[in-house]
């Protein structure tokens, strides 16, 4: 595969994983298998290379004002070393991308967005930064990003960090500068799996000299060994986020989908002041949503996939945005946009390659169906 990019950790992926093309990168779809890797994250700890994602540094006296204008969520109220999930909208209220913003210091922010939008997002940010006293820097290729996710993630990382990684010290959506296995990293309690866990950012690692990244990666795997750690590929990344009801750009979110129908009302602060797309979203809100994101739990044997049509009583009710076989629930699950007339708890039919399979309309927060033990 020529012309494709590789992350700093490619050497490991090449030796241990099955390489596929994703967002212009050669990435591992699995190492052992989607199901064992997925279950490792649900029950113990899994480690992901997420360096293929885009990362930009935004700093300057008007960094907050700038971000508050391009993002729908409130940026001004963020404390230092706090992270926030948000989307950026276009003038029509459609989603340009979803992303996580990390406030490193008062005027210094790290923004992490989807791999497939590396160029688009940086260009979008740059285009709209004109009127603000800010500097933008694309650090996608020099900041390595490793996700450590699962109920044992904290314990595994605690073995190789002298700082307190407990919930009290660094809670959900909070960050900490620390040393992991001797490497200075920014550790944030964020993730894309629905489990507790961290994302580690290792700075200033050139692609041509990736060994620091490989050593950190191997050190994390070593620390997790006693807990049953597994390296996890993009296959498990997708099944995990789907079970957790989290969006994937290109599936649930596109420039033709607004965050309100996507169920992301909580990251849209219509009262905070001016931001791109605000007027369009106010209008959409006042007119009422026609469709909304729901979960589908298959009742018949069959796996719903992206694009499959959904019917209710013979009428086309919507379409599947993402679907998979759920390793945890051992059946097909999906997210879909359905007409608001279809209610939770009702049964619909999904056209699975010519066969109508029944599914129950549920919340996309499938993990709530799990029995939690406290």
């Amino acid at each position, binding site marked *: 595969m020529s012309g494709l990019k590789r992350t700093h950790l490619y050497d490991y992926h090449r030796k241990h*994983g099955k390489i596929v093309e994703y967002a212009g990168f050669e990435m591992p*779809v699995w190492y052992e298998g989607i199901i064992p890797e997925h279950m490792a994250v649900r029950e113990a700890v899994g480690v992901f290379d997420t360096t293929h994602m885009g990362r930009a540094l935004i700093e300057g006296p008007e960094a907050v004002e700038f971000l508050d204008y391009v993002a729908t969520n409130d940026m001004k109220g963020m404390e230092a070393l706090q992270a926030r999930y948000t989307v950026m909208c276009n003038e029509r209220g459609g989603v340009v991308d979803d992303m996580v913003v990390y406030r490193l210091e008062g005027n210094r922010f790290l923004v992490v967005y989807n791999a497939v939008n590396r160029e688009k997002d940086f260009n979008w940010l740059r285009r709209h930064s004109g009127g603000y006293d800010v500097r933008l820097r694309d650090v996608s290729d020099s900041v390595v990003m490793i996700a450590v996710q699962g109920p044992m993630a904290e314990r595994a990382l605690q073995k190789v960090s002298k700082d307190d990684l407990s919930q009290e010290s660094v809670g959900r959506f909070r960050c900490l500068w620390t040393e992991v296995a001797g490497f200075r990293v920014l550790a944030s309690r964020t993730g894309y799996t629905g489990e507790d866990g961290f994302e580690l950012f290792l700075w200033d690692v050139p692609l041509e000299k990736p060994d620091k990244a490989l050593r950190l990666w191997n050190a994390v795997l070593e620390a997790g060994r006693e807990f049953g750690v597994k390296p996890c590929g993009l296959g498990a990344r997708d099944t995990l986020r789907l079970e957790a009801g989290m969006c994937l750009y290109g599936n649930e979110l596109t420039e033709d989908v607004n965050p309100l129908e996507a169920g992301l009302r909580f990251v849209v602060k219509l009262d905070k002041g001016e931001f791109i797309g605000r007027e369009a979203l106010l209008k959409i809100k006042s007119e009422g949503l026609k469709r909304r994101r729901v979960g589908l739990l298959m009742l018949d044997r*069959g796996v719903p996939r992206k694009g499959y049509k959904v019917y209710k009583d013979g009428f086309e009710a919507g379409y599947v945005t993402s679907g*998979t*076989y759920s*390793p945890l629930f051992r059946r097909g699950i999906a997210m879909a946009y359905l007409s608001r007339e279809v209610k939770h708890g009702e049964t619909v039919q999904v056209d699975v390659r010519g066969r109508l399979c029944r599914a129950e309309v549920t919340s996309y927060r499938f993990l709530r169906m799990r029995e939690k033990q406290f």
Partner: protein
Amino acid sequence: MSEEYEVPEQLYYTKEHEWVSVSDNTATVGITDYAQKSLHEVVYVELPEVGRELTQGEVMGSVESVKAVSDIYAPVSGKVVEVNEKLLDEPETLNNDPYGEGWIAKIELTNFEEDKKKLMTAEQYRNLLKEL
């Protein structure tokens, strides 16, 4: 990661990665080791109906893995006389034993002399795999 694929000598193969074993006038069919390795974790198998008449090359079922679904094409023409129901409850059998316990269907042959022309020997199939 370098891969070694099992290609039993006495079987016939298709370019869609199905295998055929012939005994008297009955063909047993399945998918190859390459196919099951590519698909990886099989979660559902759609089997053809017993009694169905198949034409070589038509879609006769499908194999669903976590990530994707793949059609199974009839490698020969004939009538389906038996299907491997074990695959409905234990789809992973296709991964564990694609040439043995993972057989998919038995077909009563109606046109084998013609069908054979479109099938590959083990050696031809191995060469195909080298190109992939």
